[in-house]
């Protein structure tokens, strides 16, 4: 889960417009991050898994192996944007959705266990690809709890927005 500065949330229409502006005419790849065992922390994975039903070649989650997936995407010869979807502590109301540019993410260090979004987005940038993070404010992230109503609603909205955009460009 990322820690981000305090900013206002985005409406569904704003989200769509912002994502379309960032992606230009290129295709959208979704990479959902998080831990589904920790309630709202798994929001990104839920989004990615739902989108995979419609876009199996364009939606991946933490469970697919993040680094390998990103490496494959970075080597594709096409105009594309990777949309990371993750729970992010925005210090806003639970369920708030906010688009954050990768350059604004704290470049957390690599550990033995994982490679941070900062490195992956830099790698994508080096390969001429764009990336952005859709953050969802979690309400609770304790182990074994259910996803909160607010975050479930935000997950649904994010799926809806991404599905709409991806249908118009990824399937053409």
């Amino acid at each position, binding site marked *: 889960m990322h820690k981000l500065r305090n900013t206002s949330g985005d409406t569904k229409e704003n989200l769509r417009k912002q994502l379309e502006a960032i992606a230009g005419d290129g295709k959208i790849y979704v990479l959902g991050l998080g831990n589904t065992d920790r309630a709202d922390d798994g929001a990104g994975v839920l989004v990615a898994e739902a989108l995979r039903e419609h876009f199996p070649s364009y939606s991946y989650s933490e469970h697919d*192996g993040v680094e*390998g997936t990103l490496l494959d995407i970075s080597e594709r010869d096409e105009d594309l944007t990777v949309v990371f979807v993750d729970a992010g502590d925005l210090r806003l109301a639970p369920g708030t959705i906010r688009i954050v540019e990768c350059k604004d993410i704290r470049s957390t*260090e690599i550990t*033995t*266990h994982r490679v941070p979004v900062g490195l992956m987005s830099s790698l994508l940038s080096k390969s001429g690809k764009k990336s952005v993070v859709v953050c969802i404010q979690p309400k609770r992230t304790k182990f074994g709890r259910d996803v909160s109503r607010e975050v479930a609603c935000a997950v649904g909205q994010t799926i809806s927005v991404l599905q709409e955009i991806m249908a118009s460009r990824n399937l053409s």
Partner: protein
Amino acid sequence: MRALNVEALTRVEGDGGITVTLDGKRVKSVTLDVHEGPRLIEQLVKGMTPADDLNVVPRVCAICTLSHRYAALRALEKAIGIRPPEKAQLTRELMMLGENVESHSLHTFLLALPDCLGYPSAIAMLNDYADDVKRALRLKKFGNHVMAATSGRIVHGENPILGGFGKYPTKKALEEIKLKSHELVPDAVRAVELFASLEYPTYSEADMVFMSVNAPNKQYGFAGESILISNGKEVNVEDYKKLTSERVVSHSFAKRSMYQDKPFTVGANARLVNMGKRLDGQAADLFKEHYSDRWLKNPLMNNLAQAIEMVWSLEHMPELVDKITSLENPPIEQPTREDGAGTGAVEAPRGTLYHHYEIKKGLIDVSDIITPTAQNLDDIERHMRLTAERMLAEEKGDDEIRLGLEMVARAYDPCISCATHLVTLKRI
């Protein structure tokens, strides 16, 4: 008096820090502080069946998950009288090679290399070494793939079970591994070239004692029934407590280990010191070319050792695949007794890992897990102290000393998360 702190030791797994207390030009103390809370895994599995234990203990760590599973399997199968079929043993060896490549690729290229090349992180390294960052991710992805193909999942795969495998990898999956492993050897060789070309600081150098498993049939490998010590001795794994002599220290949640009252080293450098002459293929050539007496005293050589080991792991996969595919899927072997004890020792990427179990009436009565990082902690502190003393004597600045200490600690590829489950709490 001043204290030089590296409060959060980055690019290692888990919550740890280094504290060096200096008194003028004298180093008063050097401690690698482990702040991670104890996990009490050994107590948690007490009363469980061996099969249930296998679902719990790999959760100690998400990177050495298969090492923990393999060590537990070896110990438990010994305890309840299961002799795993040859195909299961070979497939377990393959999964260990995958884990080795996955872990070493991340540590060498992305965690250790930035230190050695003077970059604050792999992200900063991207401008000049983008291809090497991609190599790391490519190797890591392949290691993950081998782990998933053999164990069922990238992390915490459940396929390796008592007496065999729930499901063996398909011939197609195995052939893909064979092909891809061959393709990736040059990426691992590049890691060797990079680490062999570096100038290694000498501040931490001192005679070291190395321990590793003794792989069977005088071959190189990641599991065995005895432990080789670089002083020439060999000890049965059932006597592991004589080698580790655990104790508790006040500044750390992780237990410490000593051998004959002295720190010792486990890890890739220990394996190559003890079994390097058994390597074959290009890995053997690289070892012969780059091995020197410095390996016996400089912990930073562990980075180069990991790179060579990565080459061996990739080169060894096709041979293993051929052996596995030549065998029919065997039935799962069943326990032959309800009571017994056994110790399993395997080489996790970062060193020797012990699991010991005592079973009564089919349930776990005693469990003991000793991780590689817990064994290395005293050695890390010893080499950090030498580094601090020698750098102070050369009047190096605080930032330089801090980096020197971090490089030593990181070279051991410590996994602090794993090391902290080892404290036993006693209530009186």
